[in-house]
Structures are given as structure tokens and as C-alpha cells.
């Protein structure tokens, strides 16, 4: 749901990039209309009640069995970027069910490059031998939201003649590495680096190096540990640091290995979630969740082959949620409409 709201916030930028936006779920059309009305969603939320398109695409979540009413019918969540000819240009299906690509990820994929925006937090410093380092927290308007993938863009500007190393390097030399230093709950994926150039060192062999301007990307996301879904005293902003280890060399000699630390303060936004009164820290959607859940349950029971098993699952699930993890929500006046 946070993903849908973030996409709405980015509709003009998506339009500028020439990307039309469509979102599909197994929800009833009325539920989508209700959600759109409450969140000002202007793009198309398409109702695939019955999950026919989800099945045709081959992305029905098969871990959810037919008697798991009302959850049966959901897709594996993912996003396709379609080119002007109608072919799939890129797709994003992430391992964590709550990790989601954002609008900026789509725009970056469409453009083939990362365009930083002025509101995105950034920091810079000058390191060894005049090497300039900068880092920006890219995506989603520069704020943290649970599960939304963002990118730490780390730019290294090397003066002419200097280079830094990719792995592997021989003993005694230091390759360029990046270490995330952040509160528990900030996670990252492997760093994406641009292509290297070969450098032949006599007696050592071929090494791989970067020179000039080099942009590294570290995809990051925040789990519920940070974004308050598990506690009421969640921070309003967090410090995210990246330590860069590197060694700069020119054609003649190598300098001593160094470490630099880039630090950013990033705001934490609340999660948009269902008004089920089970999770603290979530911003309720404002729609009549119970009404639409009831409709989904009725639909699921009608479709279930084994109605008794479905009813038993529902009873277990209801008890489990009542028993559940989040405890009492913060006062409902806390949730904005």
C-alpha cells in the first residue's frame, strides 16, 4: 500500500519519463475505488478479481493454498517495465515479499542511468590525494519507508592519473569496498559497480581498476525494525553511513590504504497499512477494510473446493491475528486520513 501511495507521489515524474502506470491486484473493483478515493490515486488500479490475469502471467502465489481464504489468489509481487514496442524491458521481483521497487527505480531503468534529485539527502568529502567522495540517498523523495528499495549512490571522482582497485588484489594491496554502518533494520543488497578497465602490473599480472568518475550503487531498504511497525518509539530520522576502503595508485606508485566515512541523515516515513488494529506505527488507509475483507472471504469461500477446510483456516487465522504480534495500535487519532 505504501508502494501505491509512493507511486502516486511520483506520477508527474513517471509521466515526464514517458512511463504510463498500471497496478493490478486481486481486489474487488469497489475496494480499489475506495482505496483510490482515500489516497487520491489517479492512475489505473486494475481489478483482477478471480486472479485470471495473475494466473495467465504465471505469477500466482502457489504457497497460498485454495483453502487459505481470503489470501488465495494473490500474485508474487513484482513490476514489469514495458518498452514502447510492448516488450518487457526490465522486471523486478524481490526476494522479500515486502521489498518493492519504487518509481525512481522504474525511471532509472527506463533511462538507463540514475538521476539524483535536489531533495535527496547527500553528503561529500575530499579524501586522499584530492579524491572527491559523495553519497546520496536516492528514491522515494529521499525518505525511508518500510520495504521500499532505495539506492545509496556513491560517487568517486578520481583526479587524472589515479585509479582504485576492484577485487581481487594481491596481498598487501586494498581493493575498493563499501560497508554499510546503520541502525539495525537497514539492509542492503550487493553493491553494483560500473565496468572496470584492465591494468597490467609487471610481476603481478592483470588487475581491474576504475579511474575518472565512478558511480557505485548500493540498494538499501528498511525493515519494520526501523519504521516503527514493531515499536512505538521509532526514530523520526536515522543516520546512514557508508565506509569506503580504498587505495589510490598512479602508474608509478601506490599511496597508503585509506578509509572514508560518508554520513547522511534520512527521514523515516510511516507505513501505510490496513486498519486492522494489529500493528503499531502504521498509518491506516482510512477505507472500510472490514467490509472489503468480508467480501473477499465470501468470494473465497464460494471458490474453495473444500469449504470446511477454508472455514477452519479462517478461524485459525482470526485467532492468530487476535493473538498477534503488534499489540495495541497507537491511538487512532494518530493515523491521518
Amino acid at each position, binding site marked *: 500500500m505504501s508502494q501505491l501511495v509512493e507511486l502516486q507521489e511520483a506520477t508527474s515524474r513517471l509521466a515526464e519519463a*514517458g512511463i504510463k502506470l498500471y497496478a493490478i491486484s486481486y481486489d474487488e473493483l469497489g475496494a480499489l475505488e475506495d482505496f483510490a478515493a482515500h489516497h487520491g490515486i489517479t492512475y489505473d488500479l*486494475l481489478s483482477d478479481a478471480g486472479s485470471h490475469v495473475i494466473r495467465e502471467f504465471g505469477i500466482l502465489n502457489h504457497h497460498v493454498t485454495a483453502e487459505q481464504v481470503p489470501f488465495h489468489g494473490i500474485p508474487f509481487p513484482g513490476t514489469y517495465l514495458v518498452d514502447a514496442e510492448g516488450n*518487457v524491458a526490465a522486471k523486478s521481483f524481490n*526476494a522479500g*515479499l515486502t521489498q518493492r521497487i519504487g518509481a525512481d527505480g522504474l525511471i532509472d531503468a527506463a533511462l538507463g542511468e540514475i538521476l539524483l534529485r535536489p531533495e535527496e539527502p547527500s553528503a561529500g568529502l575530499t579524501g586522499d590525494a584530492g579524491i572527491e567522495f559523495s553519497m546520496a540517498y536516492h528514491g522515494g523523495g529521499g525518505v525511508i519507508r518500510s520495504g521500499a528499495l532505495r539506492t545509496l549512490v556513491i560517487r568517486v571522482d578520481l583526479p587524472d592519473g589515479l585509479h582504485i582497485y576492484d577485487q581481487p588484489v594481491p596481498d598487501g594491496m586494498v581493493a575498493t569496498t563499501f560497508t554499510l554502518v546503520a541502525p539495525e533494520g537497514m539492509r542492503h543488497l550487493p553493491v553494483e559497480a560500473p565496468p572496470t578497465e584492465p591494468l597490467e602490473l609487471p610481476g603481478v599480472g592483470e588487475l581491474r581498476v576504475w579511474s575518472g568518475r565512478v558511480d557505485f550503487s548500493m540498494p538499501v531498504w528498511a*525493515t519494520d525494525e526501523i519504521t516503527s511497525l514493531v515499536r512505538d518509539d521509532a526514530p523520526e530520522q536515522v543516520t546512514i553511513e557508508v565506509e569506503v576502503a580504498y587505495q589510490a595508485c598512479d602508474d608509478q606508485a601506490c599511496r597508503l590504504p585509506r578509509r572514508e566515512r560518508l554520513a547522511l541523515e534520512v527521514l523515516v516515513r510511516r507505513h501505510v497499512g*490496513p486498519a*486492522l488494529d494489529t*500493528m503499531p506505527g502504521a498509518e491506516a488507509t482510512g477505507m472500510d477494510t472490514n467490509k472489503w475483507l468480508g467480501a473477499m472471504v465470501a468470494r473465497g469461500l464460494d471458490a474453495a473446493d473444500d469449504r470446511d477446510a477454508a472455514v477452519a483456516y479462517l478461524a485459525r487465522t482470526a485467532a492468530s491475528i487476535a493473538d498477534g504480534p503488534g499489540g495495541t495500535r*497507537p491511538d487512532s487519532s494518530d493515523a491521518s486520513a
Partner: protein
Amino acid sequence: MSSRDTHPDWVDEFGQVGPLPANDGQRQPLDAATPTGPEVGTRLPDFTLPSSTGRTVAFHEDRGHSMAAVVFFRSAVW
């Protein structure tokens, strides 16, 4: 305001907390064997679905010659 401790059964391997235990079917993580549908480079299958905007959208006709993003999401209800 009150909060209580989160039982570890509700926290998945990615640190996310859900309204059901992490081993429940609908919270199973995606692995390498998880299907991701149409492959890069192939035409996205066409579909026609009713929209929250009041229209009926026939995808390829509606996008015309524009690029498009098609987002499959879990639910706007839960």
C-alpha cells in the same frame, strides 16, 4: 500509547513483521525457483481489466506507443 514485544515467529528473515506468523503460506519468501512471469525481451501478454478510474483498460491499446510500468501488488485491502 502502548506496545508489546514482538514474538520472533512473526518476524521473517528480512526483518519484516506481518499480521500472521512468518511461516504462513502468504508470507513465504521468494526464492530462485519462484516464477516471475514473462521474460525480458518478450511481449507482455495483453489483458483487459476494469479500473478504479471507471474505465475498462485494454493494456496495449491503452498505452499506445508509450512505455509502461505494470505493478502486480498484493492487495489494497490487507
